[in-house]
């Protein structure tokens, strides 16, 4: 009589570890989605607490080198003023244009990039428009902060959907 075959303890442990890692990494991605959403809400509301959730030195937004502009100021006072007025006028600009945070829908992880910095790309569609907002959450030294905001106009929806599927499979 043969002893029924069971997985080796090592394999079992490995499977458990893999499951754990996937679970943790999945949680992390979901947290990145929540974080991205939170930063955007804080910016739209003009809350200064958004300051701590942005990596100002690396920050780029809509292809504008915000970080470069920010880093040009060495003094703490100037840097603080930069952050505050950025947040103030971000809110003003957003509101003046009639923006509504509810029009950002279907929040999801678009991709995870490891190099040169581990970054989770969180995407949100714009309701009823072929536009998409992408917020990159960077992971560095145990901190997760917004490093980039991008917006894209989808010019070929079908092709883009295919692309996104591929990216998700890779993820």
């Amino acid at each position, binding site marked *: 009589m043969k002893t029924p075959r069971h997985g080796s303890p090592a394999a079992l442990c490995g499977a458990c570890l893999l499951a754990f890692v996937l679970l943790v990494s999945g949680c992390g991605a979901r947290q990145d989605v929540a974080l991205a959403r939170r930063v955007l809400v804080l*910016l*739209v509301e003009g809350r200064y607490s958004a300051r701590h959730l942005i990596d100002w030195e690396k920050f*780029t*937004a*809509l*292809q*504008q*080198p*915000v970080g470069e*502009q*920010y880093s*040009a*100021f060495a*003094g703490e*006072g*100037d*840097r603080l*003023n*930069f*952050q*505050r*007025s*950025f*947040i*103030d*006028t*971000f809110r*003003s*600009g*957003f*509101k*003046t*244009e*009639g*923006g*509504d945070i509810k*029009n*950002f829908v279907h929040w999801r992880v678009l991709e995870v*990039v490891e190099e040169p910095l581990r970054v989770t*790309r969180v995407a949100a569609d*714009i*309701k009823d*428009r072929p*536009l*998409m*907002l*992408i917020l*990159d959450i960077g992971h560095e030294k145990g901190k997760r902060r917004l490093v*980039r*905001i*991008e*917006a*894209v*106009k*989808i*010019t*070929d929806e079908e*092709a*883009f959907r295919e*692309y996104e599927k591929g990216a998700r499979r890779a993820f």
Partner: protein
Amino acid sequence: MATLLILLMVIGLSFVLFTANIGNVSVQSTAIANAADAAALQLSSNLSTKSRQLFEGLGNTVKDCTETGFAAMGFAIIGAIALLVVSFGSAAPAIGGWFTTALGGSQMLAMTAVGAIGGAAGGAIGGEYAGTGAGRGALMGAGIGAAIGGMAAGITGAETGKFTEIALVGENASAMGAASISVPITAGLSQIVVGGLGVASTAYNEAERMRAIDDYINEIMKMLSKASEKDSMTQMTIMRAMSGVVDDPNMSPDVNDTNYNRDTTELVSDYQAWWWQRAKNIPKVDSNSIANALLGLDGLLAFIGGILGGGYGWAPDLLVSKEYMWPTDLSLPAAQLDILLPGKDPEGLLAHSFRALEGSGVDLSFWEPGPQYDVYTAAYAHVPSTACTGAACDVPPPPGYDRFDMAVASLHEAYIWVSALRQQSPSALAATWDHWINLVYDPAEDALDDPAYNPYTDPPSSIYGILTLVIYEMNSWMAEIDALYPTWPPCQMNAYGEFVTAPCRTTFSSWWQDASFDTVPDYEYSQVKSWLGTWGPMLLDFMRSVLKGMANYGYLGNEIRGGKNPATYEWNDARGRHRVRVKVGNFRIPNIVKREYGNWWKGKTCLELESYSDNWEFTNLGKDENYVEVSRYDQPSGQAAIGRWNPLNRSITKRAYYSYGLTWDDVHLRHRH
């Protein structure tokens, strides 16, 4: 009895009509007051918005001081527009590069958010403040926030005009040859207009009323955005007020294509076309252009005055004869500028030379002796001083009146016109431009340069045309003398040092061609040729180009038709003639200034917000300039008294005073009268 009844009915009807007209005046009065109020509130809102933005930019204070760190601030005196354009102008690969790698899409969709940028940052950041952390942060935040806000507004640009895709920059550079599936969006700016949205909304509503379309308004805003901030605010306020009062029903073909639909035959409101002209050119108008224009007129006066006998300038007394001359003393009353004076002896170069030639037996077609002073004066007295017709105009010229005299008289006429213009204040000149522009330059008279032009059958009607005529004359005079020159014998001198024959040519060398017109060896030919063949036409042509340039430059064209501020719009319709005038008080724009206190040892540098409210430390020095004044005058038509539109026959004026400050609560009307 029946007659009495009819009389009573007429009286009753008169009363009804008169009352109805009084009612009309009352309605007009209300409309004017409302227009003044609305415009005042718009302006106070714009000023308040700017105050608030600067206030927030300073960290919610009106004075931000620091001991250190501000020294570096002065490095960049960067205008908001330049900074934004540069800052937002660059493109980068789409979505971090992988789309670019995979698909090669590299288009950049530039979007603009007019109101947000203009309101939130463009107007707020200026001068040294732009170089501070707060300034840079505000600029970046406003642009990015506005662009994202516009994306998430859930509405399209076509629906609101607020968020507009303005340009596709670059081509799809896909290596695969396939269409790109996405393009990155960046915050681009093409227009910065403080209070732009409010004005756009107002203008749009009014334009709808006036049957204009959105493109027209966009164009107006674009054009005004090129003006200075204060000019832009002022003109938008004027537009707001005026649009509420003007009810001009006249329409004309859209020859300027004010709405950019390529249809220049459609009918558009005259008022629309008028604003288009104003907005197009107001950015070009500044005090410098007025000063330059006046300099141009001064130069012309000096030149013409000099050659007519003023005894100064480039060619003193060039055209003076010993028989008569025209006065050129600007201190004389205008009426006395038109009274002939006795001539000078020695006379000017040209009359002297022509007289010498005629005395030597040469019959010049353009010159005869005379007219004598008294004969000319008597004949001139019969010339009608106003428009004439038929035989009344047919005053025969005095004996001796020739083309030379006609050129002199024409230049004198130009001199009187220019001196009359020059005596007006710059603002009066600006306000009445369309009444006198054709006196200076009439494009139709460009045709005078045509060699076939005959000044006798088609006399010039502008100063430009007169200069053209004199150039024409000078050239033809010189040509006639040049044609005679080879026929003259070589000069031979007698024992008394005089030439034996006159006129005669010199034979000193092959390169020195000269001639004497009389027996005195003073060689008039080279002097006359110098003036008639070179300097005279050249200087007159220069003056012509100055005049043409002034007219074409913008300031002196239709652009300030109605005046810059106050602005006046006039029109005629079945009710009579109407005039609407809007004046915006000399308000101050909120601004941030840098001030340094203390000394080298211990000091501080402060950024201070100024003029952030209408009563900020009495910046207006007790003079309340925060108002908008609107007045309307309806000139009665020629109907009977009971049917006249404006039975009171006077203008209605309303002035609204406004307040502004750091909060919306500060935006209100103070009082009106």
